[in-house]
């Protein structure tokens, strides 16, 4: 079957009952999505399916066929000049020096990116509720929370900048 991953059609050999995480990591060699529990508990396998944070370890291929899958490898954008522009959440995670071992971070970042899409101006409590089902064994919770709030502010500033008349922007 065909899957659409990070804007590219990929043909995969496995059947529709195969789980997305193994297809990504083992068949396609896309190891940015991690595996932690294979049972939906930890969130390290999170990818976006049509923009919705989805645990790839409990998601059969049948569910994602025909949908747009975004993994951490596809979250940054290339601008017109070909330069890589990190997603504001990725940038915020660097700025706050969030990751320790990093194993949970693809899942944290994609969960946050999807959340901020639906709630661009969250309160701290809303961030905690949205991120509260993603484990980080290293215990980076304090910084994750700060970084998600910072990313929200950053994205709001970008939206404001984009809607201002050109002369004001300059």
């Amino acid at each position: 079957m065909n899957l659409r991953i990070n804007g590219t059609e990929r043909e995969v050999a496995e059947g529709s009952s195969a789980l997305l995480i193994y297809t990504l990591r083992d068949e396609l060699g896309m190891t940015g999505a991690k595996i932690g529990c294979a049972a939906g508990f930890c969130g390290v396998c999170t990818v976006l399916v049509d923009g919705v944070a989805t645990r790839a370890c409990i998601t059969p291929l049948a569910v994602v066929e025909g949908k747009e899958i975004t993994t951490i490898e596809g979250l940054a954008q290339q601008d017109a000049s070909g330069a890589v522009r990190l997603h504001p959440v990725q940038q915020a995670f660097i700025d706050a020096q969030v990751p320790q071992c990093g194993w949970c971070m693809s899942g944290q970042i994609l969960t946050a990116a999807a959340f901020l899409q639906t709630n661009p101006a969250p309160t701290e409590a809303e961030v905690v509720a949205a991120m509260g089902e993603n484990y980080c064994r290293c215990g980076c919770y304090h910084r994750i929370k700060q970084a998600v709030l910072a990313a929200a502010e950053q994205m709001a500033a970008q939206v404001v900048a984009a809607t201002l008349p050109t002369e004001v922007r300059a």
Partner: protein
Amino acid sequence: MSGDANTQPAGADPNPSRDAQTADQAAAQPTKRSRWRLSRRGFLIGAGAVAGGLALGYVYGVPWTRLQLAGVFEGAEGQPSRFPEDPWAWFEVLPDNRIRLYLMKVEMGQGVHTALAQIAAEELGIAWEDLDIAQATTGRDMGDSLMTSGSSSVSGVFQPLLEAAATFRAMLATEAAMLLGAPADQVMVAGRGFAVQGDPARRVDFAAVATSKTEWEAPKEPVAIKNWQDYSVIGQPRARVDIPAKVTGQAIYGMDARLDGMKYGAVVRPPTISATAKSLGAGAAAEMAGVVKVVVAEDFAGVVADTRTAAYAAVAQMSTEWDLGHPWQQAELEAIVTVDGRDGIVIQEVGDASRLLGEETTVTSEYRTPFAIHTPLEAQAALADVQPDRVRVWCSTQGQGFVRAEVAKAIGVDEQIVEVIPTYLGGGYGRKAGWEVAIEAARLAQAAGVPVHVGWSRLEELRYGYFRPLTHHQLAGRVDAAGNLLAIEHRQASGDVAFDFLPPLMTAVMGADFGAYRGATIRYDAPNKRTVAFRRDLPIRTGWWRGLGLLPNTFAVESFIDELAHAAAIDPLAFRLQNLHDEGDSGRLKRVLQAAADLGEWGQPAPAGRARGIAATVDVGTAVAMVAEVSVDVTTGKIRVHKVAAAMDCGLTVNPDGARAQVEGNIMWGVGSALIEEMTVQDGQVVPANFDRYPLLTMKEAPDVAVVLLEAGDGVPRGVGEPPIGPVAPAIANAFYALTGKRVHQLPMNEARVLAALA
């Protein structure tokens, strides 16, 4: 800094299917390694660095040399590791004139690559961007310190690396002066080369210097290194070099290692902790879809298949008959780990505590802590490629040297042909100091004739490792009318921590497990104090878990100190300060206690419904104190930790932001262990098979944290990765007491235990 090793096919060669080269053939070909003539002393580290690590002055009847040997395994200070004396083992010059630093320490999130790069940059005197760092494989001779543990990576490597960097720069500078025809003292580092002072046009690049000859001599005299007060890179916060790859999915871990043509392996596991196999057999595994090879040996059975799913499905079909052994229950194990007077080893004796204890004014108490599991989110993982003349293992490991030796033994090859390539670790915490998964991958790869990856499931990670052991503590103490400690005794029983990894002869000589009693001795001033360790043999494998005995022992001792303070009707902070002196580690402990108290608003009224508790420890030379602010829901019994304020003096801090991150992470570990984490055994098996039965702390329970770092003012870095795990649980327990007048004597302080305490 141009990225870290494990993102590019350099030292770590992390994604071998893209590039099947090793370090020596890496894309950015370094200049040829030159010969080095030994001419001065080696770096024998240890003698000067024993401050506090093992409380050696207190050890009775244990030869110093044995403890030194044990230090190899513990990795604590006092570790007699040899680091390479030859600067060319540490450094190479790249064709683009950057200098590459090779590191024997692995990056598991503790930021060690960045901190060590700062140390090198300090003495090399080059720009941060001009330093490249690479994970050394075991193919590179980096001495015998191929272990990352015991909070010792920065403190242990600090001096040898400073000296190696200074020597490397001096050697290149001397050669550059010759090439430039200038006096050596007028040749300075300028960008990616050297230039004559005042005449920048007369310059030579690093690569030109490095390739100008093939044999280098050590400077006759040791090269002077900077005074620590003059450091400009060390001590500054640096962005971690491994972080960009970790937010873009580019970082490669053991679980991610891939090779063309590789297959996936799975291994038969015993159904109980005491099971022994009566017979191993292939069963129906060979007929299962996708199976490449079924391996049945005397002591090992597994499957190699096209996919991981197929491998696990097939392994479930293998026919194994087990003798299940005794169906151990939790209560039986707790009965084993009990202080009961047998075979105690005195590890601290000052005055005569027993003479004063037992009187009416004696306060006594008991504590217990449970089994805990490391459960790194990346489970054990290794990829092995076994060729007749060459074996390579990509592995998420804290001990690549042990992995190489054990793999060679397991598959019957000469260690010299085995190269272990450490990847990034998706968490280590002591659990990746083993080598089982590498052996499994290697045995399966050898049998199947293809590269095999073994990546444990969560069930395997939770059940088949080694655990933080059960502990039991009995304490007794007396305080005089003025609030001075008169006598105190701590009797502590624990399953093995380090002893499970040491030969029986050594453990017999040592008697008490230094890992189990880490943090057990009494730091407070008392004319009479005594600590006794009771080793208890459990039928389940226990071992090093972050901080080893530090968390259980600090929970017991610092909870008890609080009990003594309350019994004497003295403020717990004032009581601690009163019973410490101003000099040495004791003085540092006082200062962190005061700093944590200030940061945590000690002495000021807490918000309604909350109270604060304080606790502190000195571990591997680092003093750390914390104030926790908690509330409790009296109907559910749930303790909520709102804030933890921490003060740490780890001596000289190399990367302050990295040190803070370690404190923050340790606080979360401490809260998890204080409130949630508990592994139990039932009917002979470890209960949790996934996170539903071993839940971890989430952001919902995570406290706000504030961290202040103090400096010892002596230019000596000490350990950071574990000491802060000590005071968290007792600070919470003490806050709970301040709030409710009740004490929970057993971890975790979960709902059931809190309700029982409140009843």
